[in-house]
């Protein structure tokens, strides 16, 4: 019973979090953002079933998200047209089944091999589907995409999902359900063999399993959950267009999973929340927000390969053993350099953006952190270069201290482990 409660506790906590979130962040924009987050959590987790769990690097995951969404939106329009009694909450399931179907179809080709071959095939399938979206205009709707009206569907216990809050709760419910299901999958014989195939596909064959079959099943599940996410996106935006299944949407899944951390189950959840938040807020602030994204991704890949969650776990481990204080001085030492270099980089990017880009028509003055900087004059550039140069040099110079501190911490962490 206690074990059961302990098993249930994190999910209950998540459910409560989902339930109270709109009361804490009640504004319309917050509601929209949280709806997108819920969708992206499912999408990122479905992607990590391939990358983190099974060791398959896909470059075309948006195919299943997008096709799930398109099928869902056509299903909604068909339901409206034929006046069927299918309510909105059923629609994501249709998206999921579409994702599953296409996952099976393309999986037959993609999962034949692992590694680079797999990645190349998913890239090819991704390009194939996204380019066909401009040819098959009746299905994909060309440039404008396909629209729908979710409140025209049959009411669900009196709810027509007109207001955003109702859509939010619908997404939250599907998100919770999907997260629990995907977590449960990792704890089954199939899920564990996926980990084995990620670690060593050759040996898997010698304990009686077909690596290809394991990859295939994982691919179908990933397609299914991506399709659910696509269906939710279709309900949320009431529009699907070809961007939703293009390469940029595919790399978004990789970004979210990687930034959050692919080696833990919770990583992609955290990644989806962070990336969605930045995507929406940064795109308001800067026209080159994708550039910051790319830089952040490179930073994580180079310096925190286990993502944000991995980084936090590492520090929690140190904190639990009472070793965090050893790290503090070295962190304090490198922080000013980091901040200076970061500020310098942001200034350089924004100044360059203003000076060389089309937005120059808005004048040469950039407002950064409330300060107006004229990109046509030298002083802001000099300050930016100095900040970046000195900051980066300071970090580079002082970084070995961080390494030494971690060395000391690790020594103590491991010496207490049983031999």
């Amino acid at each position, binding site marked *: 019973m206690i074990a059961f409660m302990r098993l249930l506790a994190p999910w209950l906590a998540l459910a409560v979090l989902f339930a109270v979130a709109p009361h804490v962040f009640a504004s319309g924009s917050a509601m929209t953002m949280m709806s997108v987050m819920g969708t992206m959590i499912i999408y990122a987790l479905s992607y990590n079933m391939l990358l983190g769990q099974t060791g398959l690097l896909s470059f075309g995951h948006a195919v299943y998200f997008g096709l799930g969404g398109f099928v869902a939106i056509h299903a909604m329009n068909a339901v409206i047209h034929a006046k069927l009694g299918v309510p909105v909450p059923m629609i994501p399931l249709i998206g999921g089944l579409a994702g599953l179907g296409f996952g099976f179809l393309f999986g037959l080709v993609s999962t034949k091999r692992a590694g680079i071959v797999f990645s190349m095939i998913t890239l090819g399938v991704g390009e194939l589907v996204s380019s066909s979206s401009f040819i098959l205009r009746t299905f994909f709707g060309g440039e404008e995409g396909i629209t729908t009206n979710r409140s025209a569907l049959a009411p669900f216990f009196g709810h027509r999902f007109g207001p955003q809050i109702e859509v939010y709760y619908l997404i939250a419910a599907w998100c919770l359900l999907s997260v629990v299901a995907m977590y*449960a*999958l990792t*704890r*089954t*014989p*199939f*899920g*564990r*063999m996926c*980990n*084995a195939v*990620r*670690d*060593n596909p*050759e*040996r*898997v*064959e*010698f*304990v*009686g*399993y*077909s690596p290809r*079959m*394991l990859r295939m*099943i994982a691919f179908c*599940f990933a397609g299914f959950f991506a399709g659910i996410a696509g269906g939710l996106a279709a309900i949320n935006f009431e529009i699907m267009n070809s961007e939703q299944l293009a390469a940029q949407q595919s790399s978004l899944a990789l970004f979210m999973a990687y930034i959050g951390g692919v080696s833990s189950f919770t990583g992609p959840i955290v990644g989806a929340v962070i990336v969605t938040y930045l995507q929406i807020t940064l795109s308001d602030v800067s026209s080159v927000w994708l550039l910051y994204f790319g830089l952040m991704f490179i930073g994580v890949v180079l310096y925190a390969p286990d993502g944000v969650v991995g980084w936090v776990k590492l520090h929690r481990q140190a904190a639990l053993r009472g070793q965090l204080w050893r790290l503090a001085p070295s962190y304090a030492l490198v922080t000013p350099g980091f901040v200076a270099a970061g500020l310098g980089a942001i200034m350089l990017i924004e100044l360059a953006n203003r000076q060389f880009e089309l937005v120059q028509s808005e004048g040469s003055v950039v407002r950064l952190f409330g300060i107006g900087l004229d990109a046509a004059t030298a002083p802001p550039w000099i300050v930016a270069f100095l900040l970046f140069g000195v900051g980066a040099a300071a970090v580079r110079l002082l970084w070995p201290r961080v390494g030494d501190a971690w060395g000391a911490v690790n020594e103590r962490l491991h010496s207490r482990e*049983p031999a």
Partner: protein
Amino acid sequence: MTAALSLHDLRKSFGAMSIIRGVSLDIENGERHAIIGPNGAGKSTLFHLTSGRIRPTSGEVSLHGERITGLPPFEINRRGLSRSFQITNIFPKLSVYENLRCATLWSLGHKYAFWRSINGLRDVRERSQWLMEQIGLTGRRDVPAGVLTYAEQRALEIGVTIGGGADVIMLDEPTAGMNNSETEQAVALIRKVTEGKTLVMVEHDMSVVFNLADRISVLVYGKIIATDTPDRIRENAEVREAYLGQASHQ
């Protein structure tokens, strides 16, 4: 009576190079059979051909009378032949316990089950626990396999190999790179876990071979030049010249 494992005129060439040049061998049920031979004789290749890792150019492999030539490794494994590797081949990021669990799942009939919790499978739990005790790694249950000591990894390699309960076990140099006491322990372990099973092993350590094997085959340049009891192999002039004698000169 059909042999547990039977090779008939097995051949393998890579391009113009013949590695295995017509090997025929019958290994009886319950026999402990060692394959010895100089480096490059094709011992590991013979293992790969038998276990399905590579396909033979011609010839036949039968397991309990059933033809298994050209089947993929997992099909051969499901029919009751399991092998280990010369270079440790386990799941480095998974714990000792999880490594062993992976090895038991198929044979206990759980296949690709995605509808039931793995922790709830009592047969898997008990068998993995039993395996862990057999190979003496109970104290290392949750340690990732990648950070085990070399001897521990070799023990785990054997554990993963016998995990599925196969009745034909093939071990490729199980004591390679071990010191004397580690080798002694490994031999005791092999003896214990292959009790009542058919064992085929490649081994370089002659004391291990003569200690464990019921019969020995000597493989030289892709051909078996003699198959006999350890005593007679020791006295065989051709073997002495081709292999044992040569070894003593080194």
